[in-house]
């Protein structure tokens, strides 16, 4: 452990958590001693934590982790700093506007907190591969999009090795997901394949605010309707002059946004509606969720505490969903969100299926249907983004000729994944990995 830069008693408070046993500690928690600072070593050397998002939640999370003794932190964010971020994203200054959030946040933490090593990546989470994600002890997400949450959730579930239903615990990387919206927030701990995952609860998410097209087109009542009109109809209307190519519309470009604002304002005036502002225009077109610094602080704190407890075993962690509502009074509620049977992501075990590459699709399907593991009745198969065989009337004719082709001819490679849907399945789909046997 490199303690040369450490101030004396720097980690005293953390020591109180990891040097003493307690009633809620994990059964095999071994407190650190002077000669065996195992947990401290873990925090400072071994445990690598990934923070996704360096925005409102991300700034708080990075600060909290660094101050809790974590030293190896990666942060991914593809966004750049906007002037409107500065009120709550405290790692950024006015001079940073336009720069990468991840890079500025990492540089700030590294210079402010001695010994902390934050590595920034200005990219999409989808740009990183399995090996990259495999190196982390835990992943904390402070995201504002369902899409990104869905992706990282699916990615971490896919890293879990599951052999005939036996989960290999070494491959389970917890996802701690925080989210805020105004005075409301939520923190949850997802142990991929063990507890419910993000996809299990996707149907329960409140749908995005949308307005009927006819309202937008004909009976606007709210300033939001006017802004939506500018974005939907105004952009397409060739008769409306625009200082840019509408096909290249970019809601980060002030020139474009100003046009949307002016167009929306004009429409609002025509319909005697007040309240169209530039800020609201930005909010509606970028789908910005109102953010409150203190809600971010509460949720980020909950997330980081979970990461700390998970990594140190010093106390039990959240099982598995905490919602916070500070809108009317203060209300929190913790409950166990249950795994959804047949969840498209975590409810589908990938089973391996041994088969010769020279088997025809028809025979392959017969074998699948005979296999008692699956209980298929009318399976439809796709692989690598291509149809193999579809039972439904819509694509049956197009895929029928495939039945007499061999798997090899259908370009199914050894170890490829085949997704199977079947009305008899409780969930959405089932996934099978083909394992080629050598022909004798």
């Amino acid at each position: 452990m490199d303690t040369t830069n450490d101030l004396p008693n720097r980690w005293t408070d953390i020591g109180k958590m990891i040097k003493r046993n307690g009633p809620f500690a994990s059964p095999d928690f071994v407190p650190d001693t002077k000669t065996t600072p195992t947990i401290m070593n873990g925090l400072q050397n071994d445990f690598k934590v990934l923070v996704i998002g360096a925005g409102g939640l991300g700034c708080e999370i990075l600060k909290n982790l660094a101050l809790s003794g974590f030293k190896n932190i990666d942060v991914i964010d593809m966004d750049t700093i906007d002037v409107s971020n500065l009120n709550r994203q405290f790692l950024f200054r006015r001079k940073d506007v336009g720069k990468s959030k991840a890079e500025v946040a990492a540089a700030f933490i590294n210079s402010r907190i001695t010994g902390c090593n934050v590595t920034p990546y200005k990219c999409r989470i989808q740009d990183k591969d399995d090996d990259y994600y495999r190196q982390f002890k835990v992943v904390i997400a402070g995201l504002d999009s369902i899409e990104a949450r869905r992706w990282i959730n699916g990615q971490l579930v896919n890293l879990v090795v599951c052999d005939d239903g036996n989960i290999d615990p070494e491959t389970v990387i917890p996802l701690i997901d925080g989210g805020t919206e105004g005075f409301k927030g939520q923190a949850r701990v997802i142990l991929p394949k063990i507890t419910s995952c993000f996809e299990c609860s996707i149907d329960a998410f409140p749908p995005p605010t949308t307005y009927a097209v006819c309202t937008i087109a004909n009976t606007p009542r709210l300033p939001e309707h006017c802004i939506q009109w500018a974005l939907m109809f105004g952009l397409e209307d060739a008769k409306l002059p625009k200082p840019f190519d509408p096909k290249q519309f970019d809601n980060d470009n002030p020139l474009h946004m100003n046009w949307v604002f002016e167009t929306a304002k004009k429409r609002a005036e025509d319909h005697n509606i007040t309240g169209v502002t530039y800020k609201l225009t930005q909010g509606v077109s970028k789908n910005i969720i109102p953010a409150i610094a203190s809600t971010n602080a509460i949720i980020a704190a909950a997330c980081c505490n979970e990461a700390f407890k998970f990594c140190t075993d010093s106390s039990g962690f959240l099982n598995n969903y905490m919602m916070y509502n500070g809108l009317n009074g203060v209300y929190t509620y913790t409950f166990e969100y249950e795994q959804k049977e047949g969840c498209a992501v975590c409810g589908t075990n990938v089973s391996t299926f041994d088969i010769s590459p020279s088997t025809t699709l028809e025979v392959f399907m017969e074998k699948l249907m005979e296999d008692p593991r699956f209980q298929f009745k009318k399976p439809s198969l796709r692989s690598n983004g291509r149809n193999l065989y579809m039972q439904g009337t819509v694509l049956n004719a197009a895929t029928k000729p495939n039945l007499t082709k061999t798997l090899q001819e259908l370009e199914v490679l050894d170890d490829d994944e085949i997704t199977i849907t079947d009305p008899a399945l409780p969930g959405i789909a089932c996934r099978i990995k083909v394992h080629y046997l050598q022909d004798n």
Partner: protein
Amino acid sequence: MFRLKELKKQQEQQQQQKQQQTTSQTNGDASSTTTATTEPTEVKRQNSNDLKEIRRQKSKDSYFSLKSKQSAESSTARRANPSELRAQKDIDEMEVPEGCKVNFKDTNDICNFTLDITPIDGLYQSATFRFSINIPSTYPYNPPKVHCDTLVYHPNIDFEGHVCLNILRQDWMPVLNIGTVIFGLMTLFLEPNPDDPLNKEAAALMIDNKKQFETNVKQSLRGGYVVNRQFPKLLS
């Protein structure tokens, strides 16, 4: 609360049992496995580095027993995302109502297709209207995107091809599916709804002077002019 811990313990016990079995078979003596206790901190650090290696190894080869395939390669082999899985299920299991035809430009791309609706009843009977449907990557959280490619005189469809159907916007729910959307679009032709207008003039006319509205629809379908706009000839 410590489910992961319990799992690990179980596995360790199983492994120990296995090891004991093998060592007792080969050696009959377990003393060779006990190494001198070095500094514990080093051991722990060594362990957690091992963990990373175990994770890599396990996910990479031992389980799927691949020999040559590298993870870089397997990550290029596309894994179907949840929206695609849902689309596969929707499309395969949907019942296409009479008068509807689904066409794929690329049959493998199940997230983009066109829908031809030929109403079997009502004002728009026997004319065919084409829609482009796109299943976004956020499906089913977000609804399918629908555009009407055929110019039509209809209270709920404007001349740019926007379609006003409640389940495509404010009333969308993830439990709905592609089949429901197709059904909803068909309903638009059977029962145009002048209370949710996109083509305001058509809707107003439908309420004020239904006869004239019907005449206009007929005229538009035969390729005539309505309110100074020529429509494509869909009926003879």
